[in-house]
């Protein structure tokens, strides 16, 4: 611009605007393409879940049954047994993935996730306490877990409030509260009968065993409300991610916008934990996977949610059918499946030199 080196003509404002428009549309196409691929993975997981099992059903029969045809037997297997569980898996993954992406974007720490800031521990402590001391189970147990999650999240937020919220402080206090709550869980595990402790352990590992329509509808209702609310609240993320000073300068209501997002993300993690136990690793691992699939797209909330869906869907499928005569809890398999994938992405990106 200061003369001696530029040989090319400076583009006009209109040309520049057109170029930026093209760039934006290109990026949007890339975003759409990745989301589409993820959606395809999700649907494939769903379809395979419906077809596989002790009674293998061909795709055609499954399709007929879904549309209302098919005999009573396949209707029972598909609609009563497999469909609710598969849909639940997808919803749980969606909720956790979205929640984790919001936490990591807001707190700007790759280790941040609902587990780390005490939300999962709150759910776990409430659930284990309720089931061991009061013998609560079923829907009531899920409800207790939800209450525990929300209470822990609210508690952490209030404890971290000191003329505003500092991200680092929130995370540290979350770790403190989470640890305290986890110690309660560990203590209860040592003070109970082995069988009780084991069933608590199964719940803690995150499981979709025996889940059906009664667990599905509450989660569905919650996600239908919370997900759009979260995506709406994420309009403030582009500003919030630039730091409190810059965000305020751009006209973001920093505390309010952040509270809304944190509230939604906590509630999403809470309802998902209530439905399936703390499968929190999904919330940790889906956002970095989504960010590496779509580098340069910022927080990538929707891809993270879809990644979570695909992950839990595939994990539950694997957990049910990979080993003969054993049903592995879905939480286990997400760890075994999701973590190596993250490690591979990390290693591959590193070799190419894109950094961490």
């Amino acid at each position: 611009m200061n003369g001696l080196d530029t040989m090319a003509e400076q583009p006009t404002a209109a040309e520049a605007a057109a170029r930026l428009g093209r760039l934006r549309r290109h990026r949007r196409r890339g975003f759409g393409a990745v989301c589409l691929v993820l959606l395809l993975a999700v649907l494939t997981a769903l379809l395979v879940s419906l077809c596989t099992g002790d009674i293998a059903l061909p795709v055609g029969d499954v399709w007929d049954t879904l549309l209302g045809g098919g005999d009573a037997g396949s209707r029972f297997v598909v609609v009563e047994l497999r469909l609710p569980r598969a849909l639940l898996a997808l919803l749980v993954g969606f909720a956790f993935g979205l929640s984790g992406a919001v936490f990591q974007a807001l707190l700007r720490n790759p280790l941040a996730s609902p587990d780390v800031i005490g939300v999962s521990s709150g759910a776990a402590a409430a659930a284990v306490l309720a089931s061991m001391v009061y013998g609560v189970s079923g829907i009531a147990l899920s409800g207790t877990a939800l209450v525990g999650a929300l209470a822990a999240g609210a508690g952490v937020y209030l404890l971290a409030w000191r003329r505003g919220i500092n991200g680092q402080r929130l995370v540290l206090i979350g770790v403190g509260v989470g640890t305290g709550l986890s110690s309660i869980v560990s203590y209860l595990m040592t003070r109970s009968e082995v069988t009780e402790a084991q069933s608590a352990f199964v719940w803690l590992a995150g499981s979709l065993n025996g889940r059906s329509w009664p667990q599905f509808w509450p989660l569905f209702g919650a996600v239908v409300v919370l997900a759009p609310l979260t995506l709406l609240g994420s309009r403030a993320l582009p500003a919030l991610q630039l730091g409190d000073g810059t965000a305020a300068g751009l006209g973001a209501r920093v505390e309010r916008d952040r509270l809304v997002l944190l509230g939604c993300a906590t509630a999403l993690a809470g309802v998902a934990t209530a439905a399936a136990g703390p499968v929190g690793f999904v919330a940790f691992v889906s956002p970095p996977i989504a960010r590496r699939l779509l580098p340069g797209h910022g927080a990538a909330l929707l891809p993270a949610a879809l990644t979570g869906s695909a992950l839990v869907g595939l994990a539950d499928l694997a957990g049910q059918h990979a080993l003969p005569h054993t049903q592995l809890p879905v939480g286990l398999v997400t760890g075994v499946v999701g973590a190596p994938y993250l490690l591979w992405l990390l290693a591959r990106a590193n070799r190419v030199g894109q950094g961490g």
Partner: protein
Amino acid sequence: MTSSHTLQARQLSLGYGEREIVSRLDLALPPGRITVVVGPNACGKSTLLRALARLLPPLAGSVLLDGCDIHRTPTKEVAATLGVLPQSPVAPDAIVVADLVGRGRYPHQGWFRRWTRADDEAVAAAMLATDVLDLADRSVDELSGGQRQRVWIAMALAQETDVLLLDEPTTYLDISHQLDVLDLLTDLNRARGVTLALVLHDLNLACRYADHLIAMKAGRIVAEGPPGDIVTASLVHEVFGLRSAVIPDPASGTPMVVPLGRHHVTPPA
């Protein structure tokens, strides 16, 4: 097309925690003019700028934008009129230049408003002006300090406000880009009447480009006015503790401060 927006501080006291940095300061930014604030380190100039931008709530006193208390006005409304570029801004990982500059359009976008052509044009104009258009699809982390600084300035420009506050916008820039940025800000002021307030550390560039200069020390305004009127060797000594000779800048006629250190000074004949 002069900007008619006024930004003033009345009896403003600022501080962090218990420490008071600025006490009972009165200030009125001349509308439609370029104001530059200079002063030694820790004199409160960045603090003052943050308070004017409503980023720092005052301990006492008020900041008035167009006569209204800036803290009682909805923040998005303020952001449509007043833009600020803080010192050392934070960018999230793996963000692309075009995306970052685009975030300057945030105050103009409501809940459901889609990205429009006007937004593209504002971003394009800002990127052209700061010479970062070629970097549009590059990741901000990969840029040099100077390039990154220009991208942040582009973001502030994309906000298209009538008042713009910039805290040390020339810090990482080489001399040619420093002049580019200051010339571009001057264009903005002359063509669109944008009121500008800058904190600069280079005293000579401040004298050259300021319509109104404010010299601060220890949280007080020591002197303010057109540079030609107020910049003298005794002012420089009072504010910076620096011995100097002030001569007319051979290029612009504005005061040029020639620092006199312990070495390389020819004693007068």
